[in-house]
């Protein structure tokens, strides 16, 4: 199970980083979402993977799963969700205002490159 989870985290991180490097708003936001999924699973595993064990200690229980990473993941999910919403709104505003969805600097030069590539 550890191997499976590790592969899942790795694939999501790799995909996220690839999309981040696309330098246009939509793929970059998708990439960030993928990265946050990866980090959420990663945080979840940081308390070790245990199956079928309760998170709260009681009498007569000899194994338990660490509840803290679950609380951390919850916080991380809420924050990343809110942040993604903010970046979508700002990105949309920037795109509608300037008709350009590049996220890197010097948009004028990029526009010219874009024209050259299309023609």
């Amino acid at each position, binding site marked *: 199970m550890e191997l499976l989870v590790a592969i899942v985290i790795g694939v999501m991180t790799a995909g996220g980083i690839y999309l981040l490097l696309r330098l246009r708003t939509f793929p970059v936001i998708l990439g*960030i979402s993928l990265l946050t999924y990866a980090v959420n699973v990663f*945080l979840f595993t940081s*308390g070790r993977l245990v199956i079928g064990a309760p998170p709260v200690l009681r009498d007569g229980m000899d194994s338990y799963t660490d509840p803290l990473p679950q609380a951390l993941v919850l916080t991380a999910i809420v924050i990343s969700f809110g942040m993604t919403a903010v*970046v979508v709104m700002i990105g949309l505003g920037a795109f509608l205002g300037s008709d350009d969805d590049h996220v*890197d600097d010097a948009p004028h030069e990029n526009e010219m490159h874009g024209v050259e590539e299309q023609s």
Partner: protein
Amino acid sequence: MTHWLIAPIILPALLAPFIVLAARYHITIQRAFSLAGVVAQVVIAAALAWHVSDGTVLLYQLGDWAAPFGIVLVGDQLSTMMVLLTAVLSLFVLLYAIGSGCDGMGQHFHPLFQFQLMGILGAFLTGDLFNLFVFFEVLLIASYGLMIHSGGNARLQAGVQYVLFNLIGSTLFLFALGAIYAETGTLNMADLALRVTQISPEETVGIRIAAVLLLMVFAIKAALVPLHFWLPSSYAEAPGPVAALFAIMTKIGAYAIIRVYTMIFPPELEATAGLHGQWLLTAALISLAIGMIGVLAARRLDRLVAYSVIGSMGMVMVSIALFTPEGVAAALYYIVHSTLAGALLFLIADMVRNARGSVELTAQAPMAGTALVSGMFFVGAIAMAGLPPLSGFLGKLLVLDAGFGSDHVTWIWAVVLISSLISILGFARAGSVVFWKAHGTPADEKTGTRTPPGTLSAFAAGGLVTLLIAHTVFAGQVHGYTTRMAATLFAPDAYIATVVETPGKLSKPKKEEH
């Protein structure tokens, strides 16, 4: 246990929603409450700083939970000094924002400003790494709103860059926290400091990765080359007073590096020995050089100031990267100086924008109120470039002196001195083009509205100038204080003992609350 320690966080947290809910349509009431809150903040911060100046460590356990289980706020000399610096800076920035009318150009300036303060002060006060992440997010989400305040396409585009870069930083931060928790099972800083020493030398892979990841996160915040790309356009495009407040934000990265890499991963720790010092010093020297070259190369005044902030952060990080008490003491002195000087220059760039219609470094007709603005620019430039007699010069001397004993003394001295020369050239060029050449240039009719700086704006910028002068005059006392502070940072026993040994819930189990 004093409850005053949490006041700097609670006060803006209550004030911001109050302003949104009760004073939404009345800019005067918003200003009054915001200003009163910041003044109270300064008083509280000064009292806290005075209280801990004898070396006591204040501890606030949220919900009375004992340290590794609950979140704690810790007020020691370093964190209270940063809190005081933030409070004083925000007072003058707020005065300028009110004076220049920037706060009325869009909605919700004051609530966002208060939330931003809450995040910054919380980041300085918290004693828990995950809580540090949460406060980073609080200050970032408020800064996103402030950065695109009053809109505009260029500002929105720079905002997208800024938000995305910081989102990547936050994700990295979470990876680092997950790795640290997996290795040690705690995220309380003091508890971590005790536990990392117990990791056996054969099993340090995880904690080494975590330490470097964490360093990268803080380096993004501190805009260290090559992780600085978010800074120039976002600071240049942000409204003037907001950029001035952001001058403290890069210092949060520096603060976090000082805190974490003197207490949790100190240079003598076996598990992470020799891991960060070398890289940090190289990156710091490069950012110092790049920043000052950027000052010379900038074609707009606001970009010039943004690059000078990168350069001065490079200077701070050079001093921190020595990881000696002298180095950290010099860095702390320089942090105060560079925050004030950077904020002053951003305010001046905004005055030039208002009084001249543009911040392009081209000769244009004299601006309204040129004598006042050029005088302040002169002071700010001298301070930032590090010429005598102001505190930039003293700070640079301290950094050079701290670097004298290091193995890399040649590099440090060469880069610091040459980059200073370049920055002097850059500032001299900008000043002469904007203020001096203007007198020989005929007036151009098509430039937009020009308003000379108002009394309140000039007073706010003048206040920062006064603080810079005070920082120079009382340099001996300030440096003495930072030296004592650095000594306690490198021997954090009092801090750790206070956090870990103060009793709270769970040290005497009883069932209550939930």
